[in-house]
């Protein structure tokens, strides 16, 4: 085509350069949004169809053992389960697009309300666990790399591998027995001791933050006493993961030429490790930490069960086992969003940390 459409040229010709850039950015981000939407839809579809082929009868979960036929049929109609599968899915997606996650069969409450309650619990636990994981895992990984193949490395490796290899529920029960049952250093299971419940108004749902906002320090310390042990148990797992990755990233960086340059300049070993190498290590490490954080935010069913922690993982599991599909799908979407959100965040951090990514 020889002649460009005049409208086209006009359209772009008058455009200031920034706007073009902005439109590219927009196009990229709309592409991104499209991808996110697609991923979430895929997630929903997989969950939905798994949920529907589950031989668990959601109607029975509602009506119980001794229900006569007519009640059973009535509830089945009420739940829309007499409709064809694809129609059920379509109805669900339509409703969800309008922000309606439906009602949970097990709690008899809107799913969104349940999630507002269970997600902060998981958030609290996961955040603490990640803080522990990073605070201990990174230095351990560095120690392992610096003293490669010497005793600190072996120690770190074994400690890390233990974290990788112990069934977490077993660790949880033993931890509870020792630190709560015998030593009494921490608070017991649950998020708060019963008498502190409802003492602070819910703002974020994260008790520690809510207590701090309300300046209720007793509640704060009580909640802290509760979160320490489960997050340490979970954190041990992420320590293992983060330490292992840090070690391998660090080894990779320490073999780089610029490290030799720094040594040749006379930079001290400490500064080489903590400034020169670590800054480079932090770039891939952010992704690793984000990934482990995302995994924890998806809920740790086993830990939550042992510690009677009313979090997302347990909610999702219980719902799954009872074929409470609205709850399962709602929670799955939250999980998907968390995953996408964390990925975005890590991308952002990545750009901040690595000048080459700009």
């Amino acid at each position: 085509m020889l002649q460009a459409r005049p409208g086209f040229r006009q359209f772009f010709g008058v455009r200031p350069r920034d706007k073009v850039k902005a439109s590219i950015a927009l196009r990229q981000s709309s592409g991104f949004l499209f991808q996110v939407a697609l991923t979430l839809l895929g997630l929903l579809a997989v969950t939905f169809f798994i949920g529907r082929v589950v031989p668990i009868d959601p109607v029975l979960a509602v009506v119980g053992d001794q229900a006569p036929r007519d009640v059973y049929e009535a509830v089945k109609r009420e739940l829309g389960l007499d409709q064809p599968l694809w129609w059920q899915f379509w109805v669900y997606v339509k409703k969800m697009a309008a922000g309606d996650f439906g009602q949970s069969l097990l709690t008899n409450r809107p799913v969104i309300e349940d999630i507002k309650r269970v997600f902060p619990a998981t958030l609290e636990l996961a955040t603490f666990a990640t803080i522990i994981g990073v605070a201990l895992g990174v230095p351990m990984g560095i120690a392992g790399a610096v003293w490669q193949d010497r005793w600190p490395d072996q120690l770190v490796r074994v400690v890390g591998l233990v974290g990788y290899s112990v069934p977490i529920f077993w660790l949880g029960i033993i931890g509870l027995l020792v630190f709560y049952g015998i030593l009494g250093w921490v608070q017991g299971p649950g998020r708060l001791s019963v008498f502190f419940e409802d003492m602070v108004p819910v703002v974020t749902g994260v008790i520690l933050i809510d207590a701090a906002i309300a300046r209720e320090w007793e509640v704060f310390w009580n909640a802290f006493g509760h979160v320490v042990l489960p997050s340490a148990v979970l954190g041990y797992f992420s320590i293992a993961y983060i330490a292992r990755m840090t070690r391998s990233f660090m080894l990779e960086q320490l073999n780089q030429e610029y490290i030799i340059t720094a040594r040749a300049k006379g930079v001290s070993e400490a500064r080489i490790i903590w400034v020169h190498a670590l800054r480079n290590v932090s770039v891939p490490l952010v992704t690793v930490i984000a990934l482990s954080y995302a995994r924890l935010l998806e809920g740790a069913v086993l830990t939550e069960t042992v510690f009677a922690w009313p979090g997302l993982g347990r909610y999702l599991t219980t719902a799954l086992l009872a074929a409470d599909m609205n709850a399962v799908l709602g929670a799955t979407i939250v999980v998907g969003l968390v995953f996408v959100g964390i990925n975005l965040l890590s991308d952002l951090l990545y750009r901040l940390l690595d000048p080459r990514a700009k």
Partner: protein
Amino acid sequence: MKPLLEVEDLRVSFATPTGRFEAVRGVSFSLGRERLGIVGESGSGKSLTGRAIMRLLPAAARMEARKLSFDGIDLLGASARQLRGIRGARISLVLQDPKYSLNPVMTVGQQIAEAARIHGGVSAREARRKALEMLEAVRIRDPERVMRLYPHEVSGGMGQRIMIAMMLVPEPDLLIADEPTSALDVTVQMQVLAILDDLVAKRGMGLIFISHDLDLVGSFCDRVLVMYAGRVMEERAAPDLAGATHPYTQGLLRSLPRIADDRAELPTLSRDPAWLDA
């Protein structure tokens, strides 16, 4: 005059699954405030020799020498602390490729200023001033801007000049340049070499110039060591290089292409296993 650097029977070896492998096997030489070239093919041990002097060998390497002294200091017996004081301040090292030898996540300014601060004990502002001055000395225009750049934002030639600036900021007595120009374009090579030449002459430093380029070394240095398989095959004054006696050196010389070359093909370099034990 007492030599600046004395190396006697330097040996570097690595453990491999099949036993020990000796990469440098008894290298000896001494150096005053002069320009010494070390030539050899890749794997001939020339770079390891350079790094061994700075005690910057990989952890897996084992190093021995009868003598390794710099300005009267025994480098072999020096503590880590002593070594840190010498590195950068008194002996500096310029590496081959600025793409890898500069820290990618620190700005040029930070990296040069760091060199100044470590040894000069100067304030941040003073370090910055020195860095700027040095960048100018390596003929970088608009050094203020360059200071703020990250290594990936500068060209190879500029990167190498930055590297040189960084290494010369603490004003060392000896500079080891390990193939400083082989990663650069030919035109840029010359510029960088000119700068290096200029600075070394001005400051009266000793220079060890490691290269695989016999011609370059011949024209640039005062004296040349030819290495093969971890050994010094021959040592000659640069102007005298054409009169090399060792067959390996002769081979190297013969395999160089010349402008006025009428040979149909370059002769292949022949290696005699006997040289390994000589």
